[in-house]
């Protein structure tokens, strides 16, 4: 007997502050005005997507000591946008990226519990750990947290938040009445948490929300990040969207689950994925190439090369050859407020490799940045894309994808209109929402039931 088909999970990432977003396109709208968020969210809900996803950055990016101005700059506050979107959607999950370094558990738990109430059980929290001192300059404690403690704080932060979510059980509020007391138990919400990072106690003032706890996402990719996800998260927002890298990542993290007494289906792997859709595969390839050139202008190419070279390269011609000088490998990095610059662990080796590549292919700086940058993950006709997505999911490269369109706010339309119906025809994507909460969409148990299961076993 063949394996039953997996159901695909799909989500929509609101276009962000990096060069994936082509703001210069004539169709591109505001990344700030609420109407863009409404448009985007309602498109995702029309397509029966699981959730909308918002990334977060707590300080505008800078490069070479100046605000980075080639990409979209600025974004609204995550909680406030999600609470407002709860008013204009009915089923769509609302996932917010919220940092565990520059916040405190009481405040964050309160905001997620509030969002969960106000959305009828649709909230999710992507726990990220950015700790850099540059971002810290906007906050009370500055860059207080050493890199190696980022996950110990995140883990304890989440544990404390869970204690707050669980400090109400859901049966404390007495039926409405004219006078008298309203709580069965005056100690409802009482909590005490003592640990290395937090020493807090009191009474939490938001009663149990529909989902009990928000759905928990995790995004970091290090060894510690993966362990954190395996022990605590309901889903991972990963960067491994190709077949092979996806399968390797999927196997890696799912194999870690048993160590925490968890089953394979208790952690979903949802990579970020870009796409270019056209009537034919050939047209899509052509269009994808054009979009990549729009995403990497000459000016952007130089700035991206600076991530590796760590030097001011503004005097170079982006249509000319790569610099002869070597990267500056000192600690002080030219780019501030980006996670990806830390990906180049050995800049000298990368520079050498890129010079060879460029020479062999006769590439300019701009060509090189385009060719070594990310290709769109899915390129083709609707049929090709639907088939590929399904193959990837059935082959355990992921449990679905978080789609990142390059046009705000209309970049999902074609996918919704053309790809989703094909997935529905194949029986691998919902035609209607089956329940009201995000846990329902993701097939995740309510935390009370998970607890019962752990107690019973």
């Amino acid at each position, binding site marked *: 007997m063949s394996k039953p088909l997996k159901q695909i999970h799909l989500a929509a990432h609101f276009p962000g502050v990096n060069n994936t977003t082509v703001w*210069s396109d004539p169709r591109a709208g505001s990344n700030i005005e609420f109407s863009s968020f409404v448009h985007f969210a309602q498109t995702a809900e029309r397509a029966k997507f699981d959730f909308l996803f918002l990334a977060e950055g707590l300080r505008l990016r800078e490069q070479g000591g100046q605000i980075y101005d080639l990409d979209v700059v*600025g*974004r609204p506050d995550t909680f*406030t946008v999600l609470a*407002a979107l709860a008013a204009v959607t009915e089923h769509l999950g609302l996932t917010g990226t919220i940092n565990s370094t520059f916040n*405190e558990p009481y405040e964050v738990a309160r905001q997620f519990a509030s969002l969960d109430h*106000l959305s009828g059980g649709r909230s999710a929290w992507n726990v990220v750990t950015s700790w850099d001192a540059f971002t810290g300059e906007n*906050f009370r404690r500055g860059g207080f947290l050493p890199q190696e403690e980022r996950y110990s704080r995140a883990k304890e932060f989440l544990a404390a938040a869970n204690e707050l979510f669980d400090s109400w059980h859901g049966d404390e509020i007495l039926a409405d009445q004219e006078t008298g007391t309203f709580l069965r138990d005056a100690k409802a919400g009482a909590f005490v948490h003592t640990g290395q990072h937090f020493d807090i106690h009191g*009474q939490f*003032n938001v009663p149990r929300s529909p989902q009990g706890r928000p759905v928990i996402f995790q995004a970091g990719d290090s060894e510690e990040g993966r362990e954190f996800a395996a022990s605590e998260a309901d889903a991972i927002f990963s960067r491994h969207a190709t077949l092979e890298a996806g399968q390797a990542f999927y196997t890696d993290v799912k194999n870690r689950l048993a160590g925490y007494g968890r089953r394979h289906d208790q952690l979903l792997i949802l990579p970020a994925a870009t796409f270019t859709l056209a009537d034919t595969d050939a047209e899509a390839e052509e269009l994808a190439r054009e979009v990549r050139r729009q995403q990497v202008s000459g000016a952007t190419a130089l700035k991206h090369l600076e991530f590796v070279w760590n030097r001011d390269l503004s005097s170079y011609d982006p249509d000319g050859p790569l610099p002869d000088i070597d990267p500056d490998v000192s600690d002080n990095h030219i780019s501030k407020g980006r996670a990806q610059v830390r990906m180049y662990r050995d800049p000298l080796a990368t520079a050498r490799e890129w010079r060879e590549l460029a020479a062999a292919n006769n590439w300019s700086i701009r060509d090189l940045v385009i060719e070594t940058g990310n290709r769109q993950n899915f390129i083709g006709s609707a049929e090709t894309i639907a088939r590929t997505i399904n193959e990837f999911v059935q082959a355990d490269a992921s449990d679905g994808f978080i789609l990142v369109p390059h046009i705000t706010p209309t970049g999902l339309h074609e996918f919704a209109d053309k790809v989703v119906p094909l997935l529905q025809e194949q029986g691998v994507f919902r035609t209607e929402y089956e329940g009201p909460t995000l846990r329902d969409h993701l097939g995740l148990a309510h935390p009370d039931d998970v607890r019962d299961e752990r107690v019973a076993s």
Partner: protein
Amino acid sequence: MPRELHLSLALDGTGHRPAESLAAAHWTDLIGLAEQGALDFVTVGDSPAPPHDDSAGRLDPVAVLARAAPLTTRIGLVPAVSTTHTEPFRTSTALATLDHVSEGRAGWLVDVSSTEAEAPAVGGRGVAPAAELWAEVADAAEGAVRLWESWEGDAETRDGATGRFIDRERLHHIDFEGPHFSVRSPSNVPRPPQGRPPIAVALDVHDSDGQWELAASHADVVLLDADQPSTAWLARAALLRRAAEAGRDPEALRVLVRAAVDLGGGTGPGALPPAELRFTGAAADLAGLLADWHETTGVDGFHLFPTSAPADLPAVVHDLVPALRERSLFRADYTGRTLRDHLGLPRPAG
């Protein structure tokens, strides 16, 4: 034509429906009704303190009002936010975002957290002396305003020719340094639609100098507690003088007197929320009282604090507002779109 009267309402009294007040509909119904009455704004109070007898908890007020914003089009939305235990940067960006999602209807009721219950729940620091709390929140207000103004209104240039999304000369690092916090960068959130969402400060005439200072130097709207018309008259005059001394235009300060009201929805006078001006009775009589105060004290209007918002708000909208209109004191309908428009406050330059 008499001077216009401004009317706003606190939505804090859950009206003994603790379970219902956790659902969005409780809030959106009330705010929608308040908008039918063309009220200037509603406030939602806050406290990270433990639940108490008359309520089973409180949702985050910014989230509550953001949830209501897309379902309303005119009414001002003013959450109480304390920065004592939280990050001033976040408060500023959250309020700027509330202004974006409501297209120019956000305000901020500045608050502090001063109780023994709040400090250990959030952690990090003990209960500070009141003077320190008020001085710090004045810094937070200053920081918030600088962050709102850190983007000039036309900073997003989207210049295809140069590939520059913004003109970074029009973004400014605020470099705010205070004794309790500092904020370096420009805001993450572009200039809010109102330029600067109005800042409201609650003030009792007996309050400390720190609170008076906050009100005089940062408030666009003062929610004033006063027991007598003469007290209100004197307090308003003092506020305008102090605002002028702080280099502000005293014309751009609105003083609304807080009035605890029970229009039949409450459980008797004992249930009135604390306020020095208290009223129990019929809406038509309240109209007379407010009209008298408005005429004799020079204040700009009132901030009603009902015993029970769900029970008293219908009387406000269906009885009090028409009675004030009959006296030509209250707008027949909204004439502007933003909270600043309703309050007659000019949009700040830049």
